[in-house]
């Protein structure tokens, strides 16, 4: 108890200033980078980075713009899974965009492709079932290999 009546130690002051400085710089950067927008479903958040502008414009023109936003096809169902995917993609994509080290044209990675293929089945389960169902074994067709413009009309 008595400890708190004494004046703050030098370490305390410096530690406080350090934490304050980091929080200030970090907080400002977070707001400047529209950090909160990433917690929403708004496609414009994905186009915060100009690298995604063409994909965003492609989506605007696509057949699915009425029924699906980015997250509908690019994140899995389930709150936890969705935000885990967002966090992981958010980190790796930001790292790539910040350092400028990524291949062009952009290529979807297999894990994210899997998420998208599953997303097709969220709505089109019946028709996919009819195509894949009758066959024995575990064959799985790729939807986007043929229907590659439904989400982004090039």
């Amino acid at each position, binding site marked *: 108890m008595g400890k708190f009546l004494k004046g703050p130690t030098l370490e305390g002051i410096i530690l406080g200033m350090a*934490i304050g400085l*980091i929080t200030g710089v*970090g907080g400002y950067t977070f707001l*400047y980078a529209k950090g909160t927008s990433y917690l929403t479903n708004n496609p414009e958040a994905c186009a915060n980075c*100009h690298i995604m502008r063409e994909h965003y414009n492609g989506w605007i023109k696509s057949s699915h713009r009425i029924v699906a936003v980015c997250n509908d096809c690019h994140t899995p169902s389930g709150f936890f899974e969705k935000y885990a995917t967002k966090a992981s993609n958010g980190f790796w994509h930001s790292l790539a965009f910040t350092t400028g080290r990524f291949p*062009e044209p952009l290529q979807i990675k297999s894990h994210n492709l899997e998420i998208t293929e599953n997303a097709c089945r969220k709505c089109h389960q019946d028709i996919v079932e009819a195509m894949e169902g009758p066959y024995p074994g575990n064959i799985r067709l790729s939807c986007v290999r043929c229907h590659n413009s439904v989400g982004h009309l090039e």
Partner: protein
Amino acid sequence: MAQIPDNAPLPDNPRRSYRVLLILITVLVAALVAAGGVALLVNILERKQEAKNPFYRVVELTDETEDPALWGKNFPMQYDGYLRTVDQVRTRFGGSEALPRTPTDVDPRSVVAQSRLEEDPRLKIMWAGYAFSRDFREDRGHAYMLEDQTYTERQRVASQPGTCLHCHASVYVPYKRLGDGDLIKGFEKMNQMPYHEARKLVRHPVACIDCHAPDTLQLRVTRPGFIEGIRLLKASQGIKDYDVNTMATRQEMRTFVCGQCHVEYYFKGPEKRLVYPWARGLKVEEILAYYDDEKVKDWIHADTGAEVLKAQHPEFEMWNQGIHARSGVACADCHMPYKREGALKISDHHVRSPLLNIPRACQTCHKWPEAELKARVETIQERTFQMRNLAMDALVDLIGDIKTARMSGKSDAELGVARDFQRKAQFLLDFVEAENSTGFHAPQEAVRILGKSINFSRQGQIALRDMGH
């Protein structure tokens, strides 16, 4: 942690020094984290600035601005790519290698491309009696077009007209100067000058103004040869008075600006007028028929006495027969594919083989791994090259047979049929040989032409045999 030297005085109060150390570490860590935060902040700021598409006009460009460096002040990214055409990189069947050479008074070049004549001596037999049998090298990037033409040994064994500069220099401004503002008049004047005299009137290899309008930067055709050639071609298709600069679509222009020069041509009459032989169409047989009608020959073959033709880089004609042309893909889509510079989308002005740029050139449409795409192209090229070698052997056989018949005293009348077969076989073979894609621009068309060429060579030999030479 720094080592404390043995002779250092012991700190009088270990607790105090511990405190100082703790404070220092706190300050250091905070500084690093804050610096990282600020660095990220600045990076985000830069990325946001990029997205604002800054474009600054610092130079006023006019229809007389010849120097590409001035255009480069307004368009630094495009200019940077344009400058990179100095690169010399080999591909499996094309590209070039920078070979050192000792400069001489007549040829100050210290770097050249490898000689094709040394790679395949059969070319010397095919071109016997023509300047190409003396010096013929692998082609290099656009940056070298003017110096390679100026200093090739072909200039010294034959006299060339000013016409050649139509495609090896930035001639738009010089033509207009020479013609007092009239492009076509200037073109006609320069065609008739000796090469080295005309050479003094030009300063740059192909430059910005040759393809772009200075005010709008829109693509435009400036070469009289193409303006007239495409008009002839369109007339043959029933389209009257075709004006390329007002009637072509933007996507067509992304091919036509290249077609200004990457074409088959000949010099017509004593005026040495540059003509693209498209009055009957673009296919090799249509071009050959046109040449036969016009009684065109490039030279008399030294060994056989046949009136033969030299085909030269008919990329535009060959590409027109292929699937990419049919699908509406333009030259620029593969040879100058779009790339991102910051947030700007620009076409890559480092014009080069798509094989050196597979991701942007091919993968935009073809979603296959890079290695797979390269293998597909090289498979096509390997097959074409095999056929080309067969055709080359067949032609060399025919030339040998005609030569033998000639030595044994056969008359011109008796040799006529075989010589005509040589003219045909040779032009068809050269049409694929001189075309810079080893068949890729139109794979089936290329092997079809080579197959026909082989047939003509063998028919020529049969004609001689039946004559009983």
